[in-house]
């Protein structure tokens, strides 16, 4: 049975979107690509909700981050947490040394591209993987068959494309002495808009289009996908509630009709890389 894991964009979504099995949130200074809050706020959320909670501690960790990371892990270990999304390998030795019993989920968004590496990490007690968003549906389904851990795939929302330690917006505004009161930004290129966020961690950029392919989602469910992640970034709580209703009720018979409904609400929907293979050999004279 495929569960719905919801990544809220803000408090409003968290308070009003309940048609889910679990939430995933981040923690200030330790997370990227997820809605981050303080550790106290996370604990309050855990105590109040009847849903499962996953925590993203998925930034690239420098030496200086390790004390905060260790303290956070020790605190989280006292609560019922379903899993920790991580990107930095340091979480493997640290959770082992501290006897943290929360399952680790490998979630380095563009490195989780083959079952061999996933099974490699499985030997180190990594229980699950958040599978890459830039591989095809066929590749994902091959992973579903051959990977021993539990599998998570993002099935709706803007996709993470870029993480940097640099502060790209702040630098640009400073360099050219520009003033703005805006708190949300986009990059514009060739008729497309890419959400860009510059925060304490650095800069992240998201895709211009919204991944949503209900027919593909049905195939993943039939191939034993464990958890489907829905990313709420960029949408109102009302729209997300409609999306959640659809993802909870979709099946082979109604997928096309529901897909049309979503397209009429969200114009920039596409299927990401599910049917689109990336290339990497670009010279004619390649050996």
């Amino acid at each position: 049975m495929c569960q719905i894991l919801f990544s809220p964009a803000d408090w409003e979504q968290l308070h009003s979107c309940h048609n889910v099995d679990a939430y995933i949130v981040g923690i200030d200074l330790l997370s990227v690509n997820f809605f981050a809050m303080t550790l106290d706020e996370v604990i309050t959320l855990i105590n109040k909700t009847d849903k499962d909670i996953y925590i993203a501690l998925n930034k690239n960790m420098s030496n200086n981050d390790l004390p905060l990371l260790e303290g956070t892990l020790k605190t989280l270990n006292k609560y019922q947490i379903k899993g920790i999304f991580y990107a930095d390998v340091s979480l493997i030795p640290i959770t082992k040394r501290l006897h943290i019993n929360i399952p680790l989920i490998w979630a380095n968004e563009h490195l989780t591209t083959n079952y061999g590496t996933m099974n490699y990490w499985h030997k180190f007690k990594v229980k699950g993987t958040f599978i890459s968003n830039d591989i095809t549906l066929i590749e994902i389904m091959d992973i579903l068959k051959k990977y021993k851990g539990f599998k998570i795939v993002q099935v709706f929302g803007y996709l993470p494309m870029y993480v940097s330690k640099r502060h790209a917006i702040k630098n640009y505004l400073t360099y050219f002495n520009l003033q703005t009161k805006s708190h949300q930004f986009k990059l514009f290129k060739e008729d497309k808009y890419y959400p860009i966020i510059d925060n304490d961690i650095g800069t992240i950029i998201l895709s211009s289009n919204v991944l949503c392919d209900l027919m593909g989602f049905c195939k993943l469910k039939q191939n034993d996908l464990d958890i489907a992640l829905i990313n709420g970034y960029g949408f109102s709580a009302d729209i997300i509630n409609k999306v959640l209703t659809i993802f909870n009720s979709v099946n082979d018979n109604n997928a096309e009709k529901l897909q049309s409904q979503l397209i009429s609400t969200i114009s920039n929907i596409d299927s990401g890389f599910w049917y689109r293979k990336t290339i990497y050999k670009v010279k004619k004279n390649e050996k």
Partner: protein
Amino acid sequence: MKNKPELLAPAGDLERLEIALLYGADAVYVGGPAFGLRANAINFTFDELKEGSAFAHKLNKRVYVTVNIVLHNEELEQIEEYLHKIEATGIDAIIISDPAIIPIAQANTNLELHLSTQQSTLNYETVRFFKEQGIKRIVLARECSYEDIKLIKEKVDIDLEVFIHGAMCAGYSGRCALSNFLTDRDANRGGCSQICRWDFILMDDNNRPIIGDKDFTLCSKDLSLLSYIPELIDMDISSFKIEGRMRSLYYIATVVSIYRKVIDEYFSDSKHYVYNEEYERILRNCANRDSVPQFFNNDYGVNCSYYNGRVEISNQDFLGIILDCNNGIATIEQRNYFKRGDIVEIFGPNHEVVTYKIDKIEDENGDLIDIVRHPRQIVKIPINEPLEKYDMMRIKKLTN
């Protein structure tokens, strides 16, 4: 005194491998026929790897092959056979990114394993973990500061490789898929189309453009740690890495020879070592973008941003390469326009820089000419200096 660090240079082909090693690199890293992160470079065949590695070993130097793509399922199934073939070429180590390769390489080969910067390794816990898995050397993330590197070295006894010069990724290595999304070219499998150097328009929350004198870009200046070489030697870093497998012969020769001098000068007499600003000027002249220490000194803010988009300075300093020198006549292959009367510098791995005014030029037929304008034109110049094959001729710059 600490151990003398290895100077590690990039080599896009056999000629550049030879140049890099002759100009003072202790080792080179190259791409093999597959699985490397520069899929649009020429790269080496297995035979060329064999030849390059034999050349290096004669000089007591080393060759590393990049096997540093992030694997997809289909590549996973081909990797074992590929590693066997790589090992048979006699190279010294492979640089991997995907940990799935670790057990495959260990079970089937005796290859030494280096962990690529593509893993973005920034802390001692991760370094220690990979050491325990049998990794011989870690190429640290370019986001590491001096303090980060120092602490990692103090906490874990392992070979560390640090980038000292060259282009930078704007994002964390491995966490940038801009190329995938905007051009369908997979950055983590060698297809990076360098979207970070594209211009964009920054828009506010009402879709109004925020426009400076230049367009928005993610592009950063290049890296140069020339002035920090003593600190890196004192930290006992094993290998100093120069970026750029797609760079020119001249760039490789210049950058390698400058860093060779700095390392040797500091290592031979650290107490009396003096930073040579002339070296900095030479590096600046052969580069096509500004360079700064980046994350190493924690100054990665606005000073690192580069708002010239894809406009890069085309370097015209490199005039030619010496093919031969006999009886006071140097045979030179042209690389940029030069003419009679030019004042030039000729440098090479085995002698000091020679400054010379060109008085006479003969073409291949022995006819006198005033201007050498044809690409790769072969000319002869009388010069009474002991020049050698692979010496390089550049224009003498009288000012900065």
